[in-house]
């Protein structure tokens, strides 16, 4: 099951970290009408469940995360929206059947590394780019 999101104390300094980047601290952010705004959710890929620990040395799995939530007008600052997404959501207000809302997608991805044995017992460390969602936004 997903790890309980770590509840971090906001930094003392006045520049609050971007809510989208910290797992869990703003998990239950809702738009005024109760819909969930675009943000990052926990998703854990388990090599253990895949039965791969006979060749994967480390890690046993990794947190990939995913993005989900409404990109509805007004696009709050926390939604990491592009200018285009803001315009698109305005047009969607006027012509909902013609133009869809902007979509909630990763705005920053980072790498993860896997250490494993190959079939010749060589040990290989491979870096895989764009595997972990660092932040989400409306596009």
């Amino acid at each position: 099951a997903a790890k309980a999101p770590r509840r971090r104390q906001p930094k003392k300094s006045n520049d609050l970290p971007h809510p989208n980047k910290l797992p869990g601290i703003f998990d239950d952010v809702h738009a005024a009408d109760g819909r969930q705004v675009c943000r990052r959710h926990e998703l854990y890929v388990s090599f253990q469940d895949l039965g791969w620990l006979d060749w994967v040395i480390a890690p046993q799995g990794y947190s990939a995360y995913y993005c989900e939530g409404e990109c509805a007008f007004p696009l709050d600052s926390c939604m990491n929206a592009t200018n285009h997404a803001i315009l698109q959501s305005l047009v969607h207000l006027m012509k909902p059947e013609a133009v869809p809302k902007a979509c909630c997608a990763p705005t920053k991805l980072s790498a993860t590394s896997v250490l494993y044995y190959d079939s010749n017992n060589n040990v290989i460390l491979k870096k895989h780019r764009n595997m972990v969602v660092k932040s989400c936004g409306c596009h």
Partner: protein
Amino acid sequence: WGSGSGSVLRRRLHAGFAQRRLSGGERRDVQREILAVLGLPGRPRPRSSAASRAPAAAAPLFMLDLYHAVAGEEEEEEAVSRPVLTGLSTQSPPPGSVVSRADTVVSLVNMVEQDRDTSSPKPYWKEFRFDLAQVPAGESVTAAEFRIYKARGIARHSNCTLHISIYEIAAEHANRESDLFLLDTQQLRAGTEGWLVFDVTAASSHWLVERRYNLGLRLYVETDSGLSMEPGSVGLLGRRGPRSKQPFMVTFFRASSSPVRATR
């Protein structure tokens, strides 16, 4: 998504969220897709499983240190070129920038070892042959190191200075000596003990150009006066040494271009 005790891809399951059970074929497809994302053609099958083989051998120990350094860096998101491996007790770390910019690091353990010792005419040497079949396609070598452990060796030599040289066996001939290509040389006290790291990057240009898959390295030891010494007598350990001190090669690769996923 998955079977058994948990699901392969675990997300926070809200009340009422139905989890679909995958069929056998779907499970295989899921595994194949994740392997493809990890850049693996198929599921590796090492001769004995990782769990049963505690990482006692030198290469896995070294690579585990490298993994922790790189994984720690990914979390900090400050991939600056600083000496990545701090506190690596057993072995001297490779230069930080080589590690953090590498896409793949391969430690090669499969090798054949051959000695020309005191039962043969001088010069004495020790030879290591590596199977490079696992060189990742579409990636270029940024650095390659040969690591060998030197124990104390015979006491009577301990005061003299040794010159240790590593050559690549460029070409072999039936009736005469092989063609050798000098890669690296080090000078040290005979009583020195610890891991020696030789830069063999220069040999890598031959691997990729000629697609040769067997790299031969030959090691010579000489004194200041040019006297050839048997590598084992000065404490250089080969495959018969303890597992945590056996020689191995480490090669750092960088993806030449963003890997294109095979269409299916």
